């Protein structure tokens, strides 16, 4: 059943002009960034590992944004297009629907990652970081995006509207990436330190900095950045669980 639902989502979300457009936009963005990094005089003065770190931020930032936008409509559209009623009239389990949609969002992330692979390979050539670079972007991206999409599915269940879900998701994404805009004084404050300790985006980029710039390649050496990501995923799952209960109380179809 999950396989049937997942295949339907892939056809509806990824294997469409919209999905192709996302991948094309990502490819153009990665091409532009890679070209600049390899040809721009000022950028080429940077250490190659710094370039890789910048590229990883661009890849993961783009992926977080695209997958969040896509995930905001993957469930809510069922309610907006009135297909949810027919779907839940079949013996399908809500958990199976959510799992299939979550897998479809992760598939989009994997497709974006696949698009990014050639750029990562080219920019990391000459270093011995190609495999750690690919591996850590995949691992950290999967953990972060898995949590983010669980959170978005939970929001979708409560709102049943892609517009409201998208707005909320983008606000959350903005809040998570806000520390990047902080001045160094503000970053040093206690509150910012606590936020950074638990913020999944901060931990992803710190981990990549640790791997690419400081050559700390083992998982153990990056454990302190991985557990906040797992914690974020667990919190997102708990939120989804609560949303499922609220959704069931309201009914599969909400009165208009």
């Amino acid at each position, binding site marked *: 059943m999950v396989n049937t*639902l997942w295949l339907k989502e892939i056809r509806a979300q990824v294997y469409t002009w919209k999905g192709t457009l996302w991948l094309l936009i990502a490819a153009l963005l990665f091409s532009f960034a890679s070209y600049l990094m390899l040809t721009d005089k000022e950028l080429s003065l940077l250490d190659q590992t710094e370039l890789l770190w910048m590229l990883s931020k661009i890849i993961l930032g783009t992926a977080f944004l695209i997958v969040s936008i896509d995930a905001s409509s993957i469930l809510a559209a069922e309610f907006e297009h009135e297909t949810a009623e027919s779907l839940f*009239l079949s013996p399908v389990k809500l958990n199976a629907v959510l799992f299939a949609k979550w897998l479809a969002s992760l598939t989009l992330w994997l497709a974006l990652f696949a698009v990014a692979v050639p750029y990562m390979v080219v920019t990391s050539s000459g270093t011995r970081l190609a495999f750690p670079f690919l591996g850590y972007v995949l691992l950290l991206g999967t953990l972060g995006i898995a949590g983010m999409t669980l959170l978005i599915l939970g929001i979708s269940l409560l709102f049943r509207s892609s517009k409201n879900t998208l707005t909320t998701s983008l606000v959350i994404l903005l809040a998570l990436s806000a520390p990047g805009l902080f001045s160094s004084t503000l970053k040093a404050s206690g509150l910012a330190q606590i936020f950074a300790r638990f913020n999944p985006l901060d931990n992803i980029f710190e981990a990549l900095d640790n791997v690419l710039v400081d050559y700390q390649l083992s998982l153990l050496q990056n454990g302190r950045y991985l557990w906040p990501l797992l914690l974020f995923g667990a919190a997102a799952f708990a939120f989804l669980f609560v949303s499922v209960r609220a959704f069931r109380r309201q009914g599969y*179809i909400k009165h208009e």
Partner: protein
Amino acid sequence: MADAAIAVKKLCKSYGEVKAVDGLELNVQKGEFFGFLGPNGAGKTTTIRMLAGLIPPDRGEIAIGGFGAREREKISRLIGVVPESRGFYDWMTANEYLSFFASLYGLRSSRGANPVPALLDQVGLKGRQHSAIGTYSRGMRQRLGLARALLNSPQILLLDEPTLGLDPQGQEDIQNLLRALNRSGVTIFLSSHLLHEVSDLCSRIAIIAKGRLVVQGTLRDLQQKADLKEAYAIKIRGALADIPRGEFASRITREEQAMEVGEFVFEGDLAGANALIDRMHQQGIPVLEFRPDRDNLTEIFLSLTQAGSDG
């Protein structure tokens, strides 16, 4: 209650201050063709959604095929529903759409024959099975919705305005299909605004207004409740002037002659109508159609829903 396909007791559902369904009681027997009538906003769709397990009731009991309202997945294997909402995956073809739902029912993985081609043929969509649903007319979508509802060979069919948007031929086709399904033992719960459809198809009818049951019974029960006389529409071949009126003269009303076909309404009970038909047969007047008067049900509906609203 044991033989009931659908049993509803003191069912209540509110949306904020609005009582959508208020103490509803229904009893539909196995194999019955049951009509569910009510004005807009009477609570028909909410009731069907509660029966299908899509909305939890606030209070009351539902037993559908022996399962409770909260057993949605079990209920869904037993019933077929044509819902009010007309949402389809427009990018799929009819064939893909039904195959998708067949997979959800586990019908595609079993060794049994694929039910999709036969169903497409049954609802008259065989020629368009490979066209995207987005290109379908409203009537074609309606047929596809019915095909989806029939995928799992349901014991109980819940239909919310199943012929809405269909042309007269389409309505006739669907009605014939529903009759055949009912004859094969399928219990049918039909919610419709088309009063003639309900009076033609259903053996018993329930009328609700403002979420409350106004009346439930046969057409004759409803006529008695509304304090209206029984009436039957009769269509004959020949001139209305040739009808052997005799003592029935005062009961023959609303006469209409169109070319060789005459139509009139007989106001009286079934025995009286049969006596008149026998007399016409003796005189060699062919009777083309004999049915309960549709306008009579309109009068009953208006009379009872008005009374229900006032009460």
